[in-house]
């Protein structure tokens, strides 16, 4: 056999051995690597659609990252249950809905753990999980939609500044902060908010197995403490992280578990953001304290 032939045969045979052994151990390997895995995905901060890097620090959670982590956890056969650890007062409508839709589509047991706050859009997400757990003092609910902005037209009038708007469409500058909303515009915007509100209510009703009427009654924008939410059927259980892990084990039939936190690797900018935000906060606090003590000293001296 020629050299080239020998090489081809050896390479092919070894490749087949590699392929075959990888196929043989794939399922077992994945199961074992994070066998009995319970994935924890955090939803911490205001829900926005895409990542925001700000010098003022974070405080946002983007649906892109949450969806990516949910996908990873869902596709990893070693992960048997998913816990969404929520600490958010909601955020953008579509971003919240995207996460809620994804959570609902997951076949594995999903548990929403509301820590400090899980309200509005974040409650929308929580409700889409199989089980919702919250502390008795957690803030939940706030099933309603808000759209607000600052309007300066009065201020402009005061300084004799005229707002000139040239638009080709009647409603193009609706919501401009430099002019007062007309009744027609206000009604039109409210109509759109009502459409979102109705969808929100229907989703909560479906997720929580409640009647639309019952949810509509609760959808006043009122927040509910965990203990109240339990009575109203907005959550299933009162508890903490341990409770959520126990529930995940129970739903996934796990005897022992490996908890894996799915977090986004922080970029250099994130680390820098965090450091600067913390430094500036400490500087501000220090300056404030020194001014305060100076003022107190003056008062005492008087």
């Amino acid at each position, binding site marked *: 056999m020629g050299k080239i032939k020998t*090489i081809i045969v050896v390479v092919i045979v070894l490749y087949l051995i590699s392929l075959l052994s990888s196929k043989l151990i794939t399922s077992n390997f994945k199961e074992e690597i994070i066998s009995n895995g319970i994935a924890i995905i955090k939803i911490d901060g205001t829900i926005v659609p895409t990542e925001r890097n700000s010098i003022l620090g974070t405080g946002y959670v983007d649906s892109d990252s949450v969806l990516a982590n949910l996908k990873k956890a869902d596709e990893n056969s070693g992960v048997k249950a998913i816990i969404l650890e929520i600490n958010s007062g909601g955020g953008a409508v579509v971003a919240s809905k995207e996460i809620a839709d994804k959570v609902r589509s997951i076949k594995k047991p999903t548990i929403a753990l509301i820590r400090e706050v899980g309200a509005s859009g974040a409650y929308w997400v929580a409700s889409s999980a199989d089980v919702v757990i919250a502390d008795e003092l957690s803030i939940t609910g706030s099933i309603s939609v808000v759209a607000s902005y600052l309007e300066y037209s009065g201020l402009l009038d005061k300084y004799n500044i005229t707002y000139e708007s040239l638009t080709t469409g009647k409603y193009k500058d609706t919501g401009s902060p430099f002019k007062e909303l007309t009744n027609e515009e206000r009604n039109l915007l409210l109509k759109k908010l009502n459409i979102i509100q109705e969808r929100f209510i229907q989703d909560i009703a479906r997720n929580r197995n409640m009647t639309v009427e019952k949810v509509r009654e609760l959808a006043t924008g009122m927040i509910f403490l965990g203990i109240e939410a339990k009575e109203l059927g907005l959550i299933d259980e009162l508890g903490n992280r341990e409770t959520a892990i126990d529930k995940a084990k129970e739903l996934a039939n796990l005897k022992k578990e490996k908890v894996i936190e799915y977090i986004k*690797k922080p970029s250099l900018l994130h680390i820098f953001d965090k450091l600067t935000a913390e430094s500036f906060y400490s500087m501000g606090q220090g300056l404030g304290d020194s001014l305060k003590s100076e003022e107190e000293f003056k008062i005492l001296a008087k």
Partner: protein
Amino acid sequence: MSLPPSNLKRLGSFLIDILILNVFITKPLSSLIETNIPQNITDLFTMDLGNIFFVASLISLINFIYWIILEYKIKQTIGALIFNISVKSETKSLTFLQIFIRNITKLSFLLLIIDSIGILFTKKKQRFTEKLTKTLTIENG
């Protein structure tokens, strides 16, 4: 007389073989590890490293087999063929045992680096295992 190849040629030959092994031959196994790489540092404490070690060992074994079979059969690997270098015994004909021992350090990258230090300090540019097995890497004339 057969001359030893330059260090650059040996390195080039080795890199080509490594490339073929990693990009093609052991790809199905290495992708198994890649898909299970921990996402964060805390995963390292919770994941079972035993299986990663098992797959990594399998990859090393396949690498090892690649070298011993090709060197035993045709006295050359793909990289060596491209750089026109081959293996030769200092005694009689090349035996399987000689091939086996001279390639044993290829099971571990660290061992191979230590073994390769010999190239810099021996007259015939032999790795320590090559010296031990009385084999040479030569440039084909």
